[in-house]
């Protein structure tokens, strides 16, 4: 219990002193996860829309697999990526291992199925409403996807935010491909793991509190900016 209160104190200490290290790793955390979520949204949202408007033979299986991929174990993703990016691997020449880029790639892989699957789920309901109309207007598949993405943008927010949450709290994959190297690839979660392994629980909990506060702040900010749940929307 002392560790918990000490953790809260540590969090306050870190925040109020704007601890130099804390700022650095927090910014790196945000940079990595924002990049990953941007890429994942760019691919995942249209894919989700595509899945919503397209009927094909193996659709159910595809959706089931996509759902399953939401649970991709981070350690495995990190490991496979490590093997691919390592000097002796096929992409070794790119020299990406132990760089933030590798971490972004890892998180993108983890987040993408989440964004795509939740986007599909959100747009399915809208497609159910729009189906007849959009077919009647003789829209192309691209136009249908566009209409869904545009008119359903509010409900896509949850998909993106879920992906963000998954990314910012993730550790298994980025630990392996990033290496948790000080001043290079250390982010909030890997720093926490390090403090845990040192037995320095108060600091670890303190960093954890900072991480959670950061996530909550960003969520509230985005909700306010996008005005979801405004009384007027329904």
């Amino acid at each position: 219990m002392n560790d918990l209160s000490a953790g809260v104190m540590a969090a306050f200490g870190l925040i109020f002193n704007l601890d130099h290290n804390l700022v650095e790793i927090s910014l790196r955390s945000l940079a990595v996860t924002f990049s990953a979520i941007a890429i994942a949204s760019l691919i995942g949202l249209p894919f989700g829309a595509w899945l919503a408007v397209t009927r094909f033979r193996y659709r159910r299986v595809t959706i089931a697999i996509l759902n399953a991929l939401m649970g991709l174990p981070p350690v495995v993703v990190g490991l496979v990526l490590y093997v691919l990016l390592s000097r002796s691997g096929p992409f070794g020449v790119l020299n990406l291992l132990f760089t933030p880029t590798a971490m972004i790639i890892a998180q993108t892989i983890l987040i993408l199925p989440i964004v795509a699957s939740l986007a599909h789920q959100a747009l399915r309901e809208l497609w159910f409403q729009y189906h007849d109309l959009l077919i009647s207007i003789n829209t192309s598949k691209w136009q249908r996807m566009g209409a869904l993405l545009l008119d359903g943008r509010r409900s896509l927010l949850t998909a993106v935010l879920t992906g963000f949450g998954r990314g910012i709290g993730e550790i298994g994959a980025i630990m392996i491909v990033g290496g948790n190297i000080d001043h290079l690839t250390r982010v909030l979660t890997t720093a926490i793991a390090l403090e845990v392994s040192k037995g320095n629980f108060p600091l670890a909990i303190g960093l954890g509190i900072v991480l959670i506060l950061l996530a909550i702040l960003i969520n509230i900010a985005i909700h306010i900016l996008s005005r979801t749940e405004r009384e007027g929307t329904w």
Partner: protein
Amino acid sequence: MVTSILPLKLEEATVRKGGSRILGPLDLTLDGEGCTILLGPNGAGKTTLLRLLHGLDRTSGGQARWATPREEAYLRQSFVFQSPVVMRRSVRDNIAYPLLVRGVGRKEARERAVEWIAHVGLAGADDKPAQILSGGEKQKLAIARALIIKPEVLFLDEPAANLDGTSTRDIEALILRAARAGTRIVMATHNFGQARRLADDILFIYRGRIHERGPAKEFFAGPETKEAETFIKGDLLL
């Protein structure tokens, strides 16, 4: 329009849903000009027939063929649904959308949408989100959205069900004007007065079949089948 997309031919067309045949088999040729009205009891299959003609429902047997390739044909027809579907956009953007889909620039599409907003009597609602419109107003929006592309064939499924007298008259005028300008009209309604005012010929649908077909005057004067007679009486008794 170089070649007409008509005639549309149904041959032994049937539609099955949920395991049972809800329409057909039926043969039907749709060509020429004018206004065909679909009459028939609730659940007879009017909506299903309209959807089949428009390509929203597929034949489970037999076939439906336009004079031109599908692509071409579907670009030049519109549909007004029984319960209006509106997109989560402003009234203007709803009406402009079919033009955008057909490659018209955003600015021009919006301008033409504004004209149509006036035609159907929604003036002033341009920027309202379409979802908040009243039932009748949504119906008007749907009609504007259907007419804005100047379709060669226009399908309407009880478009005036929720309209007041004046609006009904206005919309009927729009439909008649389109018909006179060469648009082929196919419309389902339960309003006999409306059917009398608009119909050139009547398709009487009964239990998923075309039970009787004929010029409007003759149909109302005295239908050939007993079922149609009972149906007309049902309305007269009101």
